[in-house]
């Protein structure tokens, strides 16, 4: 247990610098974006009102009220999110491969630690989850700030109210902040399983190299199929299962997939891994 | 007739040409011996800092024992003098501690060194043994000397003359500044 925590700490420290850059990027881009979107809107509105000599309400009739979606669909807001997601996806792979690269192959050190090697797997998994939650949390904290900035810059008449419940109308944010707890568990649970399966696939490749890629793909597909079984059954035998039963089936499928990912990873790390 | 082994031994001792040779030219041979030892590349230092070069064909522990004998014969190791522990010896001579261990064991068996209880080991005080060591080295040197002059076609008496001359010249050379 101690080794696991130490490894998590170690992995987090390794990504520290890049993580802070990501956070900084997100903050800067979104805040600047908030300012810019609001100011541009106001400038446009004022310009048109001036040019055409119409009143504010006339402008609103024609062009509509300022919608927060202007901001939440803008590049300023979305780009950092997409960038962070892309980078984290890359890191899901790189968090393993970086230990094999370079002259000073660090994987030697990790594999020779006097602890169960599966701790390495768990530590990296936990690290990824923590990185994700960290950014998600950051975004959550940023939202009210951004909304406040915009509200203060766009004059009252042009605004609509914006409540946080409306977040789930937004494409990306609806995925990241599911309203109901069960959905939350589902989303991030699926994310966890996906990362776990990818990790095990990576370990297949690292254990068997070329053959390993083949094993990895087969394993990935198998896991996916097992996971989808309840849903497939449901589509074939519509209305056969109660929702609760379906949930239980899905839970079982999840446990099987996650459990086998962990078990296989443990086996590979103990007996098949190659430096 | 020589009936007993003891008599045989005595007879051999008296007629051993090497011992006869040794007795006659003790002094000259000592000098020669020392010169040959230097020639054989043994670097000697004070006891507190030991050093030696090894060849890789003779067992290291044997070379260590020989080194000790040389130091004794030259007087750098005094009778009863404390010698470094096995660990220290290994560290100073840069040898495997197991080898140092082996060397010490052999030397104890040969009564070259003795260990009283938990005290550090010391060079023997036994005069007989010390004499034996000096003799052993001299005999070795003499063997080398004799085999090197064997091929040269010169009667032994002439060779010994040269030895005496050289030896006297050298002792004079070292005395003159006085």
């Amino acid at each position, binding site marked *: 247990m101690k*080794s696991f925590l*130490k490894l998590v700490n*170690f992995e987090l420290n*390794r990504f520290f610098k890049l993580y802070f850059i990501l956070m900084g990027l997100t903050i800067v881009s979104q805040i600047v974006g908030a300012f810019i979107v609001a100011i541009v809107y106001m400038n446009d509105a004022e310009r048109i009102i001036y040019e055409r000599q119409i009143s504010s309400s006339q402008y609103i009739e024609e062009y509509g009220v300022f919608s927060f979606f202007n901001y939440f669909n803008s590049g300023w807001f979305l780009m950092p999110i997409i960038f962070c997601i892309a980078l984290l996806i890359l890191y899901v792979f790189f968090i393993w491969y970086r230990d094999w690269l*370079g*002259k*000073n*192959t*660090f*994987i*030697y*050190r990790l*594999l*020779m*630690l*006097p*602890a*169960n*090697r599966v701790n390495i797997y768990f530590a990296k998994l936990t690290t990824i989850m923590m990185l994700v939650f960290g950014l998600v949390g950051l975004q959550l904290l940023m939202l009210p700030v951004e909304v406040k900035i915009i509200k203060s810059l766009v004059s009252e008449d042009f605004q609509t109210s914006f409540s946080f419940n409306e977040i789930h109308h937004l494409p990306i944010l609806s995925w990241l902040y599911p309203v109901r707890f069960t959905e939350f568990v589902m989303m991030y649970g699926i994310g966890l399983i996906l990362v776990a399966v990818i990790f095990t696939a990576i370990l297949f490749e690292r*254990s068997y190299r070329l053959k390993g890629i083949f094993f990895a793909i087969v394993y990935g597909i198998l896991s996916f199929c097992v996971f989808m079984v309840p849903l497939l059954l449901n589509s074939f035998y519509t209305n056969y299962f109660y929702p609760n039963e379906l949930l239980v089936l899905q839970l079982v499928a999840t446990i099987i997939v996650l459990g086998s990912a962990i078990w296989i990873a443990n086996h590979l790390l*103990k*007996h*098949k*891994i*190659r*430096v | 007739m020589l009936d007993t082994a003891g008599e045989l031994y005595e007879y051999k001792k008296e007629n051993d040409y090497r011992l006869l040779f040794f007795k006659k030219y003790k002094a000259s041979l000592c000098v020669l011996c020392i010169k040959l030892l230097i020639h054989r590349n043994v670097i000697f230092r004070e006891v507190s800092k030991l050093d030696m070069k*090894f*060849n*890789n*064909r*003779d*067992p*290291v*522990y*044997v070379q260590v024992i020989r080194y000790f004998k040389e130091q004794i014969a030259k007087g750098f190791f005094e009778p009863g003098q404390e010698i470094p522990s096995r*660990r220290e010896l*290994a*560290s100073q*001579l*840069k*040898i*495997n*501690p*197991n*080898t140092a261990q*082996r060397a010490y064991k052999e030397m104890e068996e040969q009564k070259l060194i003795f260990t009283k209880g938990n005290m550090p080991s010391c060079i023997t005080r036994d005069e007989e043994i010390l004499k034996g060591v000096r003799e052993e080295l001299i005999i070795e040197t003499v063997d080398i000397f004799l085999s090197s002059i064997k091929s040269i076609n010169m009667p032994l008496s002439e060779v010994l003359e040269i030895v005496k001359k050289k030896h006297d010249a050298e002792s004079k050379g070292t005395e003159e500044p006085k």
Partner: protein
Amino acid sequence: MIEVKNVKKKYGKKQVLSGLSFTADKGEITCLIGINGVGKTTIMKAIMALIPINSGEILIDGEKIRKESFEKVTFIPDSLAMLPKMRIRDAIEFMADFYKNWNPKRAEELMQFFKLDTTDRIADLSKGNMAKVNLLLGLALDVDYLLMDEPFSGIDIFSREQIAEVFTSHLIEDRGVIITTHEINDIEHLIDKAVLIDNGAVIKEFRVEEVREQEGKSVIDIMREVYLG
């Protein structure tokens, strides 16, 4: 004692280890000798379970390797396995963190003996200093067995002498050491046992002092006989 029993290992089509067997005792320095690619590094990695083997058995003090074994055996590979941006003291902290048998006093002693600076970054170290740090990270562990892969490779002669001094000091005493090296002349007088390997198998395993006594031959003499026929 570390026992390697009839170990076989293939990399693709190449049979790297073809039934390798030898033993290394505690308190002795065993040297694996052979030309490049003959399987010396492979068997070391196999002992540490860093690569799988196809068949055979490897026992450390009579048991197969487990996580606790890593407090008994350590491997010093030919390159330093630490993050390049770490400083030496970070590497030491790492080891102290994860290993119960890390000996900080000995680490300090070695720092001074090798004249290293804890604030140096690993990436900035010279080859000689990297090798010394590598050794330090292994020697400062209170393990029974040390495996060293080419500790002298590519190192300047003075660093090599320093490293060789380690073998004659109390730092190695009572431990079992398995070492592979090309610089056999540097350490010939230090080793207890020589294991000559060719084509993935042991062709001769002998105690060097015995051979010197009985045959008057050095390790290099035997190597010449065995490898050059």
